[in-house]
């Protein structure tokens, strides 16, 4: 046993195995078995990941080269896995949260028939497999495989209830938008192959900083970022994510909150060296992230569907992460990915629990007063809300704070905008909380009281709540304690190069401790005020029949971005396709082709008239031809 890390292939293989078993035998397995298999393989993966994490923690990183995926001439793209700090951290998050959500799903999806239940777990396992491929890959191509794989699973899971065409449309939209991003990713890969001659992380970063022109790096990073935009739902490609809530809620928790959507962050963090060399791209990333954070937050303010609120919140939080990346807070962004995975998964699962209890009613206006029916859900949700709102000492506080401080260092305006977003977050989260759990119950049928979910669902909630509370302590800022940022020191080998490059040209002054204290206190204070305001405002919520204000309508309509896309891109494209189909194809090219045939027939009709049946005519033509021929030959 030379190096156990070489067996890294086991980690993704286990979910793949689960997928195959559940997928192929879905008509034969009982629900218990398929759910059990589905969860067990993830658990096994998790344990393996844990082992690997420990190994990495002890300083053993490893690149496992299995076989040449594509090898053409000088180019060779190996199928290789890279086990290092960043990937092992993500492995833990993915398999850990993934496992919890699998367990949760066994109860949540229990009303499905056995084959569909197995299909669900098959998809979920496949997703985990793809996600693992994405983070474990040692080069951009393997990452891309996972990248598209998760997109596929997202598609399959959003459209899980395939009888409903709205869901199918949402699934399709998600896939197509991801594809747009994927094209950017692909172009970046090609560009890298051309510039660096390789797509291995190690191979690429080894050549940096070097003689590679900045323009190329900016181009590559921008293209990569387009990919990230698609996958991580940033402006302008974010509209698929709220629609993706059509899938089962655990799916939203796993894919559309905890893991897949953070792939973009993972990718940029992974490519930190490249990005560090492209300040232009960094600015773009930061600005896009910030804009997304704010835009999504404003929309979330007026949503009534509990999952939609969480979805926009996710988009907003992803924006934060990109802001962090954009200002060079790589660790902060990854830290936020982690904490966000915990509390957002928690929130989604909590929401799922509520939905489960409310018989698939998702409109918060019909909730209210669920505190007494769903005590565990209520409590864990509250923790989640507090965490996302950034109340110390919950995890959200630390991670968000880290990003915001870096933003402040880069540009105080980023900070101001960031705080505005954070306040909105606090507001809409507690609007959600209040409308759901406080006040009086506004449900439709009062005969059947909502009841708490089974253990399979509440236990994951509790575990996640604990994590949401505790995860923050992995990244305690310098402000509180020296050298207590465990995550930073852990990830240091990954970001070292990028950060040093950034340090070489940026002259950001890290704010002094006093300023930092003041900022912290101010923001927390504001957040607390907003929370109380929200609770007050919505605890007496009733369904109003009045017309909301124009601005509120705008928010409710999500700034009408979907409609805009529809009008500007989708419809014209379809119309153009129709134009090509009917005008160019049918009455253009095809008509021209058929026209040749018609022309021949027409000339045939005309030409046969020469054959008049009249001998005089025949001879006349002969004689004329004779005269002409003699003329031509003799006098030419």
């Amino acid at each position: 046993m030379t190096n156990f890390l070489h067996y890294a292939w086991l980690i993704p293989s286990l979910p793949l195995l689960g997928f195959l078993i559940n997928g192929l035998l879905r008509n034969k397995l009982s629900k218990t078995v398929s759910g059990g298999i589905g969860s067990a393989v993830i658990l096994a993966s998790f344990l393996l990941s844990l082992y690997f994490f420990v190994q990495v923690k002890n300083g053993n990183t490893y690149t496992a080269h299995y076989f040449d995926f594509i090898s053409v001439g000088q180019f060779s793209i190996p199928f290789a896995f890279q086990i290092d700090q960043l990937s092992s951290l993500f492995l833990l998050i993915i398999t850990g949260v993934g496992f919890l959500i699998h367990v949760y799903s066994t109860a949540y999806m229990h009303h499905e028939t056995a084959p569909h239940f197995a299909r669900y777990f098959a998809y979920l396992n496949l997703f985990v497999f793809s996600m693992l491929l994405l983070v474990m890959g040692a080069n951009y191509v393997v990452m891309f495989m996972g990248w598209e794989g998760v997109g596929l699973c997202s598609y399959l899971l959003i459209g899980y209830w395939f009888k409903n065409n709205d869901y199918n449309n949402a699934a399709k939209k998600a896939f197509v938008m991801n594809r747009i991003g994927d094209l950017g990713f692909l172009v970046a890969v090609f560009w890298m192959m051309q510039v660096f001659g390789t797509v291995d992380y190690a191979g690429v970063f080894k050549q940096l900083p070097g003689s590679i022109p900045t323009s190329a790096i900016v181009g590559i990073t921008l293209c990569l970022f387009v990919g990230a935009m698609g996958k991580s739902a940033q402006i302008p490609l974010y509209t698929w994510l709220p629609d993706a809530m059509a899938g089962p809620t655990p799916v939203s928790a796993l894919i559309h909150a905890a893991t897949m959507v953070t792939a973009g962050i993972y990718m940029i963090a992974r490519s930190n060296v490249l990005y560090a060399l492209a300040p232009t791209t960094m600015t773009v990333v930061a600005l896009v992230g910030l804009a997304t954070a704010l835009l999504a937050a404003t929309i979330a303010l007026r949503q009534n569907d509990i999952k939609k609120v969480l979805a926009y919140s996710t988009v907003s939080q992803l924006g934060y992460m990109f802001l962090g990346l954009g200002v060079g807070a790589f660790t902060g962004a990854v830290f936020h990915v982690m904490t966000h995975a915990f509390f957002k998964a928690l929130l989604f699962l909590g929401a799922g629990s509520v939905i489960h209890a409310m018989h698939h009613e998702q409109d918060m206006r019909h909730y209210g007063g669920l505190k007494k029916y769903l005590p565990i859900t209520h409590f864990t949700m509250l923790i989640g809300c507090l965490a996302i709102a950034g109340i110390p000492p919950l995890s959200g506080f630390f991670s968000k704070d880290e990003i915001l401080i870096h933003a402040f260092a880069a540009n105080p305006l980023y900070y101001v905008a960031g705080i505005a977003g954070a306040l909105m977050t606090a507001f809409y989260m507690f609007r959600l909380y209040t409308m759901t759990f406080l006040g009086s119950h506004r449900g439709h049928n009062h005969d059947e009281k909502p009841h708490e979910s089974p253990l399979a669902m509440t236990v994951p909630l509790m575990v996640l709540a604990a994590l949401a509370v505790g995860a923050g302590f992995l990244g305690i800022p310098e402000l509180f304690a020296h050298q207590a940022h465990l995550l930073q020191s852990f990830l240091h080998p990954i970001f070292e190069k990028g950060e040093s490059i950034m340090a070489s040209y940026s002259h950001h002054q890290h704010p002094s401790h006093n300023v930092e204290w003041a900022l912290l206190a101010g923001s927390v204070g504001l957040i607390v005020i907003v929370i109380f305001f929200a609770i007050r405002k919505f605890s007496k919520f009733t369904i109003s029949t009045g017309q909301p204000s124009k601005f509120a309508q705008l928010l409710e309509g999500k700034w009408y971005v979907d409609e805009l896309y529809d009008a500007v891109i989708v419809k014209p494209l379809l119309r153009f396709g129709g134009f090509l189909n009917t005008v160019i194809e049918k009455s253009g090219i095809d008509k021209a082709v058929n026209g040749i045939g018609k022309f021949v027939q027409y000339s045939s009709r005309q030409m046969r008239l020469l054959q008049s049946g009249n001998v005089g005519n025949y001879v006349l033509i002969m004689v004329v031809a004779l005269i002409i021929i003699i003329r031509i030959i003799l006098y030419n």
Partner: protein
Amino acid sequence: MNLVVLAGILGVVMMFTGLLVKQLRVVSGIAAAGLCVLFISNLWELYHAPFFTLPESSMLATTRFGLLINQILLLAGILYVVLFGRHIQVVGKHVADYYALIFFVYAGIGISTSYTNLLMLFLGIEIMSIPLYILTGSDKRNLKSNEAALKYFLMGSFSTGIMLMGIALIYGATGSFNVASMNTQLSFNLIVGILLLLISMSFKVSAAPFHFWTPDVYDGAPTAFTAFMATIVKVAAFAAFIHLFEGSFEMLNRKWQLLIAIIIACTLLVGNITAVFQQSVKRMLAYSSIAQAGFMMFALFAFNDASREGIVLYGAAYCLATLGLFAVLIKMEDYTFDGFNGLAKSQPLLAGVSTVFLLSLAGIPLTLGFFSKYYMVSAALSTGGKYLWLFVLAMLCAAISVYYYFRVIQAMYFKPLGGVPGTSTSLTTSTTRAFNYTLLVMALLVILLGLQPQLLLQFLYF
């Protein structure tokens, strides 16, 4: 030489047969036997000395090429009698006389493929033509036949006049009727003479714009005789045409090549395009014969060994396929395309062989038709790419030809039986076993030679 002499004798024999034998089948049998005799004697001549030695001054000299053409045409003749014998019997009363005329035509063919003197050319062409005028008009009560005969006769005589004018001018310029004498210093007399000769020969092979008699005559003549003149006589005329300019065309060089190119282009266009709109298969075949003539003219365009090979192949391909098609056509009640509807269901064999023949005419690989076209175009292309437009045009025309040939295939295979209610496609007479087998053999021959044309071409050299 065997052919000319024996054909003349056999023609007389047939005339007497008509007096002595009353059973029509026996008459046909004797004719077939006579053709076999001709076939064998010609084959003999291909490898041995002829039976009849003619004097030096006889103005006839056989060549391998001419003999091979004779051989092909004799084979076609045998097939013709087997396939059409029963139909010749119903054209009119003078069955034996028709055969006699056919034998006379063969005498003319023998002359046309071996003459060395313009006098012989003239005689040969006339001996071929006059029986044809008669055969065309042999369905005496049929006005179409009358009309065709009259048209054919008038226009044929007219072209004879032109030919004679050409010969006279050539004589004036060279002082000799020898074909070889045309290969001298060009003078205006000679040029005009050769041109007139060329035009009259173009008339005989129905090259545009001297083709006008063809559709009307082929359409009007009794189908049994149309088959004969559209195939055997036409190829013979081509052989004569080629033979005429064999030694002399090279020096006529570029200017003439342009002329030939224009004639080819006209012929291809007229033949192919006009055929597209035809409703009657018989008339379509007439136009198709014009179109095929266009391809055969490539031999004149090129004038090299390959073109001679081409003419041999083309003659064979064209004869076999067109004879076969006419043989099927003559059995049909309705000569229009719709008449062929559903033939594949009722007569799979006939449909199958017709398909082979049609494919061959269209020049689709695996059939002899492909190689015949290939050799023609190849021979012409070997002279250089100067007239590239002509080849492109030829190819486009070949594509157009697919249109009308495949209409028959479509009718046979893909259309339901009996397009018009009440009439079901049926044959006028049932087919005999010999008829079927002959067709089958022809189809197989077309395919076999389509795979290996050298089986035929080797006779040119060994």
